[in-house]
């Protein structure tokens, strides 16, 4: 299968992250699965005229296109013209190009939260009038209409994340290459369920602190960051702590909160990213699928039952009290 990769209103970080794929490296992985790039802005040799020719050929249907990957949001401004990003050398906006090329594609994959929902590019006053390829924030209908379907019959596949984990992208492409991606494998926001059916909370190393609501009060402390530091890992989809990033990493492992970067409108939480909004001292956001009354009851019970080891470590920047050892049998 061939892939055309376009970048628009984004930072290029999803490609940069993709290049971190390991075992095997991304070039070997894609080649091994029979996936090759017609053009990729970071990797391909071709520049300028041959790229313009390729785009025209796809638009006119003379070159078949299997997968269109779009990285970055689509800019509609100023005033609906799309001229905040004119694709260089072509005299046409990326908005026009995506609308022309998407119907030609077997599959359309939006890579990253800018491309899926608008993302950080649509933050604040959204100066460039940025939208996702098929969503405007949480609402269906972006650069492409809500009822758009690629030639395969699928809606745009939304590999959300800021950035995307390299494996989320490669595994989505592997599923497409294997002809195993079906609509029921996408969640309600078009995200592949193989990673979106997990929560960032799953396998978070702070889980024991969470169990007792033993909370960090400042960044760099080891405790759970849900109560005071804005962490929404119990609501955010992603297998970040199951598969980890760049070796052993993840946001919560590095001591800062999950900011729900796989979700529509994460860029506007309505409060500081590292602050937990509270009502009467109680965090407003609850873990996914948790009834409020039960959460309150369990939280107050577990907080009262917090072992001293966990309470002390929660507000330290490293383990200060180790787990007690079982005494040897006499």
């Amino acid at each position: 299968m061939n892939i055309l990769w376009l970048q628009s209103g984004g930072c290029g970080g999803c490609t940069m992250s993709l290049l971190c794929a390991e075992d095997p490296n991304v070039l070997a992985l894609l080649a091994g699965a029979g996936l090759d790039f017609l053009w990729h802005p970071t990797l391909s040799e071709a520049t300028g005229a041959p790229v313009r020719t390729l785009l025209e050929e796809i638009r006119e249907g003379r070159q078949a296109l299997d997968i269109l990957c779009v990285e970055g949001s689509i800019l509609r401004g100023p005033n609906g013209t799309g001229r905040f990003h004119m694709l260089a050398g072509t005299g046409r906006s990326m908005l026009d190009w995506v609308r022309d090329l998407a119907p030609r594609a077997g599959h359309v994959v939006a890579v990253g939260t800018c491309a899926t929902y608008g993302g950080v590019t649509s933050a604040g006053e959204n100066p460039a009038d940025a939208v996702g390829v098929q969503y405007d924030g949480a609402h269906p209908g972006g650069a492409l209409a809500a009822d758009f379907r690629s030639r395969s019959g699928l809606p745009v596949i939304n590999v959300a994340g800021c950035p995307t984990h390299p494996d989320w992208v490669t595994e989505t492409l592997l599923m497409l290459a294997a002809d195993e991606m079906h609509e029921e494998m996408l969640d309600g926001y078009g995200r592949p369920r193989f990673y979106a059916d997990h929560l960032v909370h799953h396998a978070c190393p702070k889980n024991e602190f969470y169990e007792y609501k033993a909370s960090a009060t400042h960044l760099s402390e080891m405790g759970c960051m849900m109560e005071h530091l804005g962490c929404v890992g119990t609501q955010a989809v992603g297998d970040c702590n199951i598969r980890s990033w760049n070796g052993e990493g993840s946001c919560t492992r590095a001591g800062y909160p999950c900011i729900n970067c796989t979700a529509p409108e994460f860029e506007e939480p309505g409060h500081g990213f590292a602050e937990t909004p509270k009502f009467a001292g109680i965090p407003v956001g609850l873990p996914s699928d948790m009834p409020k009354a039960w959460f309150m009851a369990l939280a107050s019970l577990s907080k009262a039952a917090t072992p001293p080891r966990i309470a002390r470590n929660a507000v330290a920047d490293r383990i200060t009290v180790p787990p007690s050892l079982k005494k040897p049998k006499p």
Partner: protein
Amino acid sequence: MSDTQLLVGPFNRVEGDLEIRLDVAEGRVRAAYVNSPLFRGFERMLLGKGAMDALTITPRICGICSISQSAAAAQALAQAGGIVPAPEGEMVAALLHAVENQADHMTHFNLFFMPDFARATYGGRRWHERAVARFTAMQGSALHGALEARARLLHIVGMLGGKWPHTLAIQPGGVTRAPSLRDKLRMQASLRAFRTYLEAEMFGAPLEAFVALESVAALEAWDTGDVALFLEIAADLDLAAMGRGAGRYLSYGAYPTAGGPVFARGIWAEGAPGAFDPALIAEDLSHAWMLGEAVHPQAGETVPDEAMRDPGYSWCKAPRLGGLGYETGALARQVVDGHPLARALAGEGGVRARIVGRLLEIARTQRVMEAMLAGIDPAARFMADWTPPRDGVGAGLVEAARGALGHWCRIEKGRIASWQIIAPTTWNFSPRDAGGVPGPLEAALVGAEVQPGEDTPIAVQHIVRSFDPCMVCTVH
């Protein structure tokens, strides 16, 4: 060849989108106009947001120099709030930053710059078959080796920063994770593996031998690794004379320590070093699609001209220092820092000099990272006690891989009243200023060869990529 105009784009392997208009006469570029065609408006997004939001938003300006943006934002906020970071935290932040810069440099050489020499247009050159084997886009053995070495090097960012790009680990008061002794030893193993890669593949010899080069003659005698292949190509194609700049260089100084930056702050102009005065920076808007006057970034605004009127031809503003354009990047940093080889190349200032500046910095940065990591005391505190700034102004001046990156902020009642950014490629790829003086790339392209029938001249591509542009940062 009669007078013609060429429009070059989309321009790839430049981290974002780029369009260049060329006036061509008698087989040479007579004038170049560089257009950064993407406007997102980060400086406007930030207005009215809580001060600390900048740490989440600004790294997302750029997926390749994300940590540089983090570091600049944290520094600006620290200055605005009178926050002094924990020294050990500052060192971890510097290490994170150095790892990113190192990864960017080797990505540029292997994935962005060298693949152009594998092009069919160079078929028959005595080095071409070797260039094809090593550097063919997507396939060359050097690209595969580089990707794997890079991914493993970035494990250090995974450990200290959670992920790359877009970490929130760097804060005004330090970093969010205290590395243990075990972490430190694991990262030292990663650094040793990266040195092994560099010495086996890119340099083909101990890095210290490259750092010890002091003259162009000694450089030209280097005969190992991919560096030797590059130098052979450079000699054959006379890359030394291609794309020469004005010889004016700017560095804000890289990696803060108690004793000053690891690579010095300053300028180089008219063949001599000079002091850098940040008060002399102004952004000229005469040829940008931006409204307003030329002012210092602390007083700057970002108001796009939605009508995109002439004489504007780019979303990029034109930063000037004391009224002059400056080139920034690895070569500039090494010239300003006073390395003898870089000083020997300062006047040459073309494609070869920029690439060698970057290679020299790779060799030097490896040793810098090793020293930083060795100096980290796991028993120390990595975060100071601090509270977010309420009212104040701050500047964060750092060195991204591509050069001088500045953030200037004004915080009022805990909210962002102004946040202005000048990225490295804003300097290098700026449009003309009010005096009609071209930006550094525009000037460097004048005289570039355009062969008969070329619509995307290969010389222009070498010159553009020698700057290692980051187009997403340029306008932001």
